[in-house]
């Protein structure tokens, strides 16, 4: 997206740690990114790379202790979210920034009716009375494609299927028309057809309600269809940041390259086994000295082990944290 625009959410040098019995887990390390108005930003990376923890840190949902936000700022409309009190955060969560979680089967309270759960945020954020809130809830359920919404308000979560529940979760998140929607792998627990429906739904809602979306996923296929810009994370660090077209056409980081190579393709004839990246992600209990991807990187050289590469600007809105210059293919 254009750079002359002011970002709606700007995260700077975020560091999140967890102090566990085994030692300190360096979950998020020096993560900075901007989210602009009305854009969809995808955050990709393998499990445990700090995608969700980053977002939960921003929303103040990290349990402290054992968690700790060691450093950083998260500016949302002039306010630093990381310095807000719990009471201030309660007015922001759900109202300004809403979140949809991964598993719709467990994210709804089994003993409360759907209506109660959707209207809860309306009543506390917008001071609606029960009747107004119900009316709004019916509209929301209708807009996420739940048939016969008025009678469904009294239903309980166990009376819905997985896809329907995720629709309900989205209706809940969108009830107060937030400016930012954080979707934390909302389709991973669903089968592929439902996944496509949910993506279509979110895409359509973004157009209609004009909001910004942060879409956390480990599915690069989802990213291609949804996002404007992509952040690739690895071991709690941002590896590459680019517009979605740039990222697919000319990835500048060896990790992104490897990820794309490991993508199964249905449109190509299968000539060899599906590629995978050898090795395992580094232990987050030790803060890496050099580049965290060194051990699995085929292009790694001596300098990678000694010093961690900062994010180099490698093109228009394109950044990669690698000591290799993508244009020349030589070490910097």
């Amino acid at each position: 997206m254009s750079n002359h625009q002011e970002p709606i959410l700007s995260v700077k040098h975020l560091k999140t740690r967890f102090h566990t019995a085994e030692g300190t887990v360096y979950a998020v390390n020096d993560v900075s990114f901007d989210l602009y108005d009305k854009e969809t930003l995808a955050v990709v990376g393998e499990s445990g790379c700090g995608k969700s923890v980053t977002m939960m840190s921003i929303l103040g949902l990290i349990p402290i202790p054992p968690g700790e936000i060691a450093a950083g700022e998260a500016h949302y409309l002039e306010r630093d979210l990381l310095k807000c009190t719990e009471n201030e955060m309660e007015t922001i969560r759900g109202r300004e920034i809403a979140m949809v979680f991964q598993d719709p089967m467990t994210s709804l309270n089994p003993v409360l009716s759907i209506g109660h759960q959707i209207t809860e945020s309306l009543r506390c954020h917008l001071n609606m009375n029960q009747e107004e809130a119900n009316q709004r809830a019916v509209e929301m359920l209708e807009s996420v494609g739940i048939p016969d919404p008025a009678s469904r308000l009294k239903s309980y979560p166990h009376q819905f299927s997985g896809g329907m529940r995720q629709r309900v979760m989205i209706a809940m998140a969108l009830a107060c028309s937030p400016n930012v929607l954080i979707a934390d792998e909302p389709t991973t627990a669903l089968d592929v057809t439902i996944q496509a429906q949910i993506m279509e739904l979110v895409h359509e809602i973004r157009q209609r309600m004009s909001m910004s979306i942060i879409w956390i996923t480990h599915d690069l296929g989802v990213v291609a269809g949804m996002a404007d810009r992509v952040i690739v994370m690895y071991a709690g660090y941002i590896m590459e940041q680019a517009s979605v077209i740039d990222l697919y056409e000319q990835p500048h980081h060896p990790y992104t390259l490897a990820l794309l190579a490991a993508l199964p393709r249905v449109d190509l004839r299968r000539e060899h086994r599906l590629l995978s990246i050898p090795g395992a992600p580094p232990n987050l209990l030790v803060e890496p000295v050099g580049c965290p991807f060194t051990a699995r990187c085929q292009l790694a050289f001596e300098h990678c082990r000694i010093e961690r590469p900062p994010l180099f600007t490698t093109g228009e809105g394109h950044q990669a944290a690698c000591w290799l210059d993508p244009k020349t293919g030589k070490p910097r």
Partner: protein
Amino acid sequence: MNSSLESSSPAPAVQDMLEAPPLTLGQLTWRRFRRHKMAIFGAVTLFLLFIYSFGGAFIFSEQYANFTETGARLQAPSSTHPFGTDTIGRDILARTIYGGQISLFIGLTAVIIELLMGVMIGAISGYYGGRIDALLMRFTEAVLNIPQIFLLLVMAKFFAGKLPNIQVLGRTFSGSVVVIIFIIGLTSWPYLARIVRAEFLSLKENDFVMAARATGTSSTEIIFRHILPNSIAPIVVSGTLGVANAILSEAYISFLGMGVQPPTATWGNMLEGAYNYIESSPWLWFFPGMLILLTTLSINFLGDGLRDALDPHSRAA
């Protein structure tokens, strides 16, 4: 999805099944409770006991229950006094009726105090964890470490006679009733607090709690609207059994003469007067004793039935 179902036009029986509204939680609970014969017996008996104690007041006045007639002391059951008379000639039938009111009232209100204390302390302890939890749990253990009976007796002795009599609805109650309610309530909550804490510890890790926080729900709202309803089953069961315990505790202290003071009758203090006449006048202890037995027994059956009905893990037919 729906259109494909309609177009395939299923057999009428299947359609009925599809259209039957799903059972609500309450209906499911009732279905399971109904199968529990002893629980039904307990519920019916309890209902009858309530009718006996509160309905009986329309037949006998309280003055009659407290009326002493020294000429008619220690009379065996007869047509004028169906349950006999006590050591100072009061009618035992009328006294069991009014005593029942007090005993059941003490049982219920003491449990309300127990529930308030236990749920509050357990919920705050389990939800917030950390230092608050450590502090509250050490306090709970401290209370738990004092033998309840001695605590009851000491407190009963200490507060005895410190409260004036209370006038409610034109009737006079000994101030000791309130004392007994509070000391039973304030000594019985620790077990409940531990149960609630354990429930909260596991429930707060659920995704729906995180989801509720992410929509800006406040902690109080999460504790009382989201987590508490999920832990209602053990609380209801424990509360039910608590009523039986409270009635027994009241009987116990009153039997030792430190509970509710006469002339206000309770099943417990009626037993006290019977102590010296166990063999010579068995009707003195038989009727109040049987009523206590019947009440606690049916409450325990009821609690058992509720446990089975409310616990989703025991789906046994």
